[in-house]
């Protein structure tokens, strides 16, 4: 049983291997000359007194949440769309109910004005 998962394993190892090779190569091979100015934040070439903490507006967070919500919905649709004929009419009805439910959520969010940028 394990045999059939071998390609996925090799693919995973290769991915991690090449990725880490590049990042580590940078660290190992690149010359390191730390400097006082080099570690200061970059603000278009001027001395910057921007502290580490950067607070961004709440609307970014809102938009991110909405995006994740409706993106996951699509993830569920892919497998169903691939094997639709295998599951027959039952799967079709199931996905329609699923989509309608999320549609109600979408209309609610839209009416509440969460999509306009404040």
């Amino acid at each position: 049983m394990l045999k059939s998962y071998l390609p996925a394993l090799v693919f995973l190892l290769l991915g991690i291997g090449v990725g880490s090779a590049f990042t580590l190569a940078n660290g190992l091979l690149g010359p390191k000359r730390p400097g006082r100015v080099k570690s200061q934040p970059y603000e278009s070439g001027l001395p910057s007194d921007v502290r580490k903490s950067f607070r961004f507006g709440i609307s970014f967070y809102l938009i991110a949440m909405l995006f994740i919500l409706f993106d996951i919905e699509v993830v569920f649709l892919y497998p169903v769309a691939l094997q639709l004929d295998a599951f027959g009419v039952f799967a079709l009805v199931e996905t329609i109910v699923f989509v309608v439910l999320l549609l109600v959520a979408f209309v609610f969010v839209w009416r509440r004005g969460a999509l306009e940028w404040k």
Partner: protein
Amino acid sequence: MTDPLSVPYRERERSVTMERMGEEPVSGTEATVEGDLHDELFTINIGPHHPATHGVLRLLTTLEGEVVRDVKPIIGYVHTGIEKSCEDHQYWKVITFVERMDYLAYYFNAMAFCMAVEQLLGIEVPPRAQYLRVAHMELNRIASHLFAFATGALDIGAVTMLWWGCRDRDLVLDLFEMSSGQRMHPRYIQVGGVMEDIPPGWEQKVRSFLELMPKRLDQYLALLDRNEIWLRRLKGTGIVSQERCLELGVTGPLLRATGHPWDLRKAMPYSSYDHFEFDVPVGTVGDNYDRFKVRIDEVRESIRIIEQAVDGLPEGPWITEDRKVALPPRHELATSMEALIHHFKLVTEGFRVPPGEAYAAIEGPRGELGCFVMADGSAKPARVHMRDPSFVNLQALPEMAKDSLIADFIACVAMLDPILGGVDR
């Protein structure tokens, strides 16, 4: 007065509007006052080294989340003291300095300076030289607008425009190189006329360019004009009313975008512009989209002008016959003694300009480009001052950017098209 440098530069650069708002700008630190979201202001430098500032312009912007509350343009980062160097050189050599001020409209700088000196000298420019000057200036206007499209669209996200803009701009630079030997700052326009006559094949090359250019413009519009993102980003942003523009002394495409048809080529024609018939493109609302459309139509008008200039190019001398000002032709040196003396006087000491002051203004790609020359009778100008359109138009930037999103503010800077060489002189 306290030593200016001891005060951290954010306090020193306190934006004027902060007083009226009456609260301490939280320069980049946490909000000390636990109010609701709205009073946390964040001051950041869109500074001298920034991709969107078209050169070394520093914009001290006070942001509230994504909304720009106030902008203070701080300039001087490429101040080269050109006006001071001009007072140290003869009139010949000043053209080289003046051309490097607004480095995208070099023919216009040289033209403004030469018109002021010709006004002081009182010499008459032969018609062929006037036509050649008009043809080269309009080609330079096309090149300058092409570069404005290239970098402006790049700032807004249309990267293809950078390749297209530079590709077509190279065609214009080939024409400059053919007529004067150098792509940029060719010093083609001299006091009294033009440096040399155009080489034989030049007209055919210009005509082939003029046939090609409208097709390229249609390509740009096909890429941009029906692009929803482009329209949403530009329509309705950065609006400055026409009265405010006139108060701020804004001229050029920005003023014409608000609907005011003021164009020095039509209103106060110089260098035989009244011989050509062309229109002045005018916008309606005065937002960024109108500025873009006005520049596109101006390129079309410039193509018409160049066509008429190249078709109706009169015969005759390309520089004034007055030997006191213009170098005599080489073959004359071998024969006539006066030509040799004139040549020697001009080359060693340069021509003298009777004392006086003159202000000549022409229509540059970014607005009215005026040159004030004060002569004290010697061979060196006593004072050269260029009234640069970008320098004055930059004052309208805070008005455009007020209470707009950062993205629209960057689009405003892109469509304002400031050239920092001209701003800082």
